[in-house]
């Protein structure tokens, strides 16, 4: 059963040949494939890590830009609001001033016109009075004395009967 012979040597040689063939056919390509895969995985992981960091940075940047834009928008709106307020105030001020000026001018104009009208009217009245008096009396008085007389008369009229229409 246990018969040792030259088979032993042959088996050793067989096995050494098998090791050589397997190393050449299987082991080396497989080791290369494993190393390649390891390198590939490491590279993929590294790339992923790098991209993740880049994405993070980009996100941060975008967030900053967004915040900046929001602040700017806020500032612009505030500025616009302030400007509008100011403009409104100015316009109102101007309008008020204009209004006051116009009112004043109109009042003065009215007063002047009335003065003129009154003066004209008074002269007219004096002349009419003199003409009427001359016709009534039939005689011509001294013109200056006449005027003084009528004027005096009208003044006294003013005081007594035309109380609220001041000259």
């Amino acid at each position, binding site marked *: *059963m*246990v*018969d*040792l*012979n*030259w*088979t*032993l*040597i*042959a*088996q*050793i040689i*067989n*096995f*050494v*040949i*098998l*090791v050589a*063939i*397997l*190393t050449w*056919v*299987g*082991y080396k*390509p*497989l080791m*290369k*494939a*494993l190393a*390649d*895969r390891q390198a*590939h995985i490491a590279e993929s992981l590294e790339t992923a890590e790098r991209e993740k960091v880049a994405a993070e940075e980009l996100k941060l940047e975008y967030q900053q830009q967004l915040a900046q834009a929001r602040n700017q928008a806020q500032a612009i709106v505030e500025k616009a609001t302030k400007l509008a307020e100011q403009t409104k105030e100015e316009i109102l001020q101007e309008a008020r001033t204009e209004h006051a000026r116009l009112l004043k001018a109109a009042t003065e104009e009215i007063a002047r016109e009335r003065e003129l009208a009154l003066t004209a009217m008074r002269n007219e009245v004096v002349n009419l009075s003199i003409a009427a008096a001359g016709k009534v009396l039939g005689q011509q008085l001294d013109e200056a004395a006449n005027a003084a007389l009528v004027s005096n008369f009208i003044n006294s009229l003013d005081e007594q009967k035309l109380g609220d229409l001041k000259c």
Partner: protein
Amino acid sequence: MEQGGAHEIGVHKAAEYFGLTFNIETLYMTWISMAIVIVFAFVATRRLKMVPGGWQNFLELIVTALLDQIESAMGPKGKKMAPLLITLFLFLLVSNWLGLVPGFTSPTSDLNTTLGLALLVIALVHITSIVNKGPGAYIKHYFQPYIPFVVINLIEEAAKPITLSFRLMGNIFAGEVLIVILGKLVPMWIPIPNIVWLAFSVFVGVVQAFIFTMLSMSYLAGSMSDDH
């Protein structure tokens, strides 16, 4: 499994070449095993892909598992021994399983095969030991811790290849014997014992190949470490 097969239990056909005796059947079976292993390795490593599948995946599973063992047992220096140990495992696995196919016998059921492999491993152990530690330290370590221990140390060294080879040969040979005996004892229409024993033999084949490889690995690791 009928007795009319090519072999009788435990008797290896011998042939003489150049006046030297060879167990020719064992050699044939060895070459068949070698062919299977080579074809398997060849098929598994053609068109190697980044994402392994099929045979490549299977081979990678075995190789990476063994490489992990080698790495942890021998450290980085063990890489040089990796092809030998991986080949050893694959060859023993296929050899052990070959005997389960009707009409074939395991090359490992012949002591010539197992003792040859064991002697090869042990020779390698001693060579690496001498290279690694230097001849002086190598000889000195037989006389550790005291000079009389040389007897025990020598027996230990001699026991290594013997246990290694007889363990494997005994297991596989017994498996084959029992397959034949079961085939004779149990009628063919009760196949359960045969199937159970065949399944167990498949398991034994893996375990024995693994044990032989692991022990070779640990012996080699011992010769490579600087302490001891």
